[in-house]
């Protein structure tokens, strides 16, 4: 095999021709610098219709965080009603007389808030934040790519997401109010609901399109633009998580798109895909043709919505894994099995959907099938979580702010996941279905689980994006308050669920003999915790905007350097907040090793970045290698 010489420039090994290329580049850039930055893109192309994955990521991030906040605020209104049913609150007046006359929330308004809370949190909050923001910003950097494979498509995906969100918001203003049939929009209720539901459906079509464009882009980027030497098993775990997530989005969303189209037809064109014959609504016989099947919607919806829930968790796991590896200063334990578990999880998530439908009159065989798949799918999660737990062993744990959130994720997701088991067994689900036990289950996974992971990610990568660290003290205040309050909200839900308190109750169950007592005991406390949680976000919001604006004004923390956490993955090899529309790396990096080479025995450095050329051990083929500028490497 022919041997070609390589030249080292800084920490970067290059073949002669590459080096020449780089040299030319360098000259050109220098010339540019001399007579001011040439070819500046106009403001619109730079900041509004940008095609740069980093800026699009930031657009996604800020938008999604604001939506999260909005979804939270809607929930605060609901929590006020749940805690003190029928009491008049000044803030309720923001909903207008039609929804909250004299500040007392109406039942239909409660249902609207509920549907919107769910929709906003999932489709406008977490997914765009986890995939659109973190995925967009980090994946190309972590795989050493100059940008996404299809930059324009990337822009289009943001510009489908934003209108989708705006349509959802606008639907709050249409007469009769917005969607009010839950985020699950079960027909016939949703089909006979007021005009807002149509807006909801149209909004969903936009959001789905956005996700589809995004997922194609991610998959192609990861497969095609991997840096030289970055084999799949050298990916940071975060990239694997995003990879599987993209496949889930790609294949699970279209059926919901189909379902949305069918429901639109039912509402607009008067078809009856989901409308059985002979419905009598409030004394009136419906005139539609009938012959439809309401369960068809549920199947199409859950076929999306179960994979969707793993879309909510996988990126979170990815972020947590990155931060744990970095702050334990050691490789992830069982990286391989984590990767395979993730892929397996992806496959399985397509065959469990009907565990949301056990009580729709399911026979033994079918329920047995879905119970089994549901139990099976819990195993990979167990594997991933266990691996993360064990990764702590032997580490030198740095309790940085991002690490605090990442660590809290583990038990919180644990609680959420474990409580999925009694729901996954059809027999125990009989009593728990559609109770607050379910609400508790999934909030533990998405709120102190996913949201905490998102916070961790923001604290961890903020320096990369802006050149400033978020304030640590504020960060710790934010963490501890959030941690206490969020458990105060969600843990009592399990007691309520066991008591059989149904979800989506306007008064939290005060009407029901079996629910009265526990509702009265717990709801006020939970609502107070919710308000506390809102207050606990203020330090973060301040911290975020203060530093973001300061950075935008050019006040960087120069001492920080481009790798403040001492991390090994490629995003830290790029300069701090890499220039927009100019690619990410001066010269595309080459990868020589796995993602988490911390505390390598016998190594000179405490950590070895992925793109650090191998000098310590002799290269394959070569003899012992002097650390000179020119070395022999097998080509």
């Amino acid at each position, binding site marked *: 095999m022919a041997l070609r010489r390589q030249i080292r420039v800084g920490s970067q090994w290059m073949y002669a021709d590459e080096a020449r290329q780089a040299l030319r*580049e360098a000259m050109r850039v220098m010339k540019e610098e001399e007579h001011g930055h040439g070819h500046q893109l106009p403001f619109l192309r730079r900041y509004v219709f940008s095609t740069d994955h980093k800026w699009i990521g930031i657009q996604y991030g800020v938008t999604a965080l604001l939506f999260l906040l909005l979804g939270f605020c809607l929930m605060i209104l609901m929590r006020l009603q749940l805690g003190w049913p029928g009491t008049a609150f000044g803030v309720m007046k923001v909903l207008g007389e039609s929804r909250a006359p004299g500040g007392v929330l109406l039942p239909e308004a409660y249902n609207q808030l509920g549907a919107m809370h769910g929709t906003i949190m999932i489709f406008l909050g977490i997914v765009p934040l986890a995939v659109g923001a973190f995925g967009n910003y980090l994946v190309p950097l972590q795989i050493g790519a100059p940008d996404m494979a299809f930059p324009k498509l990337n822009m289009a995906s943001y510009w489908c997401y934003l209108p989708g969100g705006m349509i959802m918001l606008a639907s709050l203003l249409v007469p009769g109010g917005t969607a009010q049939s839950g985020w699950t929009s079960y027909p016939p209720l949703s089909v006979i609901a007021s005009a807002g539901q149509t807006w909801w459906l149209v909004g969903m079509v936009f959001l789905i399109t956005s996700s*589809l464009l995004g997922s194609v882009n991610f998959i192609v980027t990861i*497969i095609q633009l991997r840096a030289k030497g970055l084999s799949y098993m050298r990916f940071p775990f975060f990239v694997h998580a995003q990879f599987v997530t993209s496949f889930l989005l790609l294949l699970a969303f279209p059926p919901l798109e189909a379902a949305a189209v069918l429901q639109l037809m039912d509402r607009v064109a008067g078809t009856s895909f989901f409308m059985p014959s002979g419905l009598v609504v409030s004394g009136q016989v419906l005139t539609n*043709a009938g012959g439809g099947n309401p369960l*068809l919607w549920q199947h199409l919806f859950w076929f999306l919505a179960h994979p969707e829930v793993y879309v909510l968790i996988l990126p979170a796991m990815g972020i947590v894994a990155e931060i744990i590896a970095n702050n334990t200063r050691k490789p992830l334990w069982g990286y391989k099995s984590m990767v395979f578990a993730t892929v397996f999880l992806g496959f399985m998530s397509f065959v469990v959907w009907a565990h949301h439908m056990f009580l729709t009159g399911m026979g033994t065989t079918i329920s047995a099938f879905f119970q089994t798949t549901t139990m099976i799918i819990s195993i990979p999660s167990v594997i991933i979580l266990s691996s993360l737990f064990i990764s702590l062993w032997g580490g030198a744990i740095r309790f940085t702010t991002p690490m605090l959130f990442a660590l809290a994720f583990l038990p919180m997701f644990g609680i959420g996941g474990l409580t999925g088991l009694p729901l996954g067994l059809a027999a125990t689900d009989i009593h728990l279905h559609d109770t607050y036990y379910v609400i508790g289950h999934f909030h533990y996974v998405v709120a102190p689980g996913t949201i905490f992971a998102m916070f961790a990610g923001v604290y961890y990568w903020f320096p990369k994006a802006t050149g400033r660290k978020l304030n640590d003290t504020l960060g710790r205040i934010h963490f501890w308050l959030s941690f206490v309050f969020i458990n105060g909200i969600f843990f009592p839900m399990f007691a309520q669920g066991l008591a059989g308190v149904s979800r989506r109750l306007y008064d939290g169950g005060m009407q029901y003999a079996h629910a009265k007592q526990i509702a009265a005991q717990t709801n006020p406390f939970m609502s107070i915790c919710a308000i506390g949680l809102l207050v606990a976000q203020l330090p973060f919001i301040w911290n975020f905007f203060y530093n973001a604006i300061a950075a935008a004004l050019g006040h960087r923390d120069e001492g920080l350097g481009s790798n403040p956490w001492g991390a090994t993955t490629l995003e830290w090899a790029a300069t701090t907040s890499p220039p927009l529309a100019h690619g990410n790396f001066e010269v595309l990096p080459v990868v020589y090793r796995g993602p988490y080479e911390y505390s390598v025995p016998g190594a000179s450095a405490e950590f070895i970045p992925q793109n650090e050329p191998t000098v310590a051990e002799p290269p394959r083929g070569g003899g012992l290698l002097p650390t000179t500028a020119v070395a022999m490497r097998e080509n």
Partner: protein
Amino acid sequence: MDAHAHASVGHAELEIPYNVHPRPDTGVYNGKLGIWLFLASEVMLFGALFSSLILLRTGAETWPRGDVLLNVKLATVNTFILILSSVTVVMAWSHLRLGDLKKGRIYISVTILCALIFLVNKGFEYAHEFEHHNFPKTNNFFAIYFTMTGLHGLHILGGVIVFLYFLGPGAKMWVTEPERYTNRIEIVGLYWHFVDLVWIFLFPVLYLM
């Protein structure tokens, strides 16, 4: 010299590796992988609709017969037109690969023509149904018929628009990057075959069974 080196930074339009030439170890260029993935999601979309059709049909005690209610002759003609158009895109592409833009354009135009004929025929069909007071809300057969053929029609329309673009302004690329232009036609072609394929399924399911 592999594409890593051209992907140097700093150009106003920075260039993405492998958006023209296949990546050695994966053997495809970005666009091609992209379209295959997109088609995978399209399969899920129409797959969901077909399964809905099956579920509704098996659930219904009576189901109208397409071959009686619908215009099978026209649909058969349409089927052949679409198949023809699938052939012509391939022709267009192979001529472009031989560097013959003129022929390529001619075949693209023929493809567009076929598509338009298809749409016009569909228009006649719809009009015919409406005359006989068959609307989506009439029954679930027509509901699914209009929904699926309508959605398929939109896909055709989308294809037409893209082809028109590549026939007109898009063709400028031929001068600067002929290979890339050819690739784009190949990609649209793949999409077009898929749309064609969907029809091949729709036709028997709605019209004959």
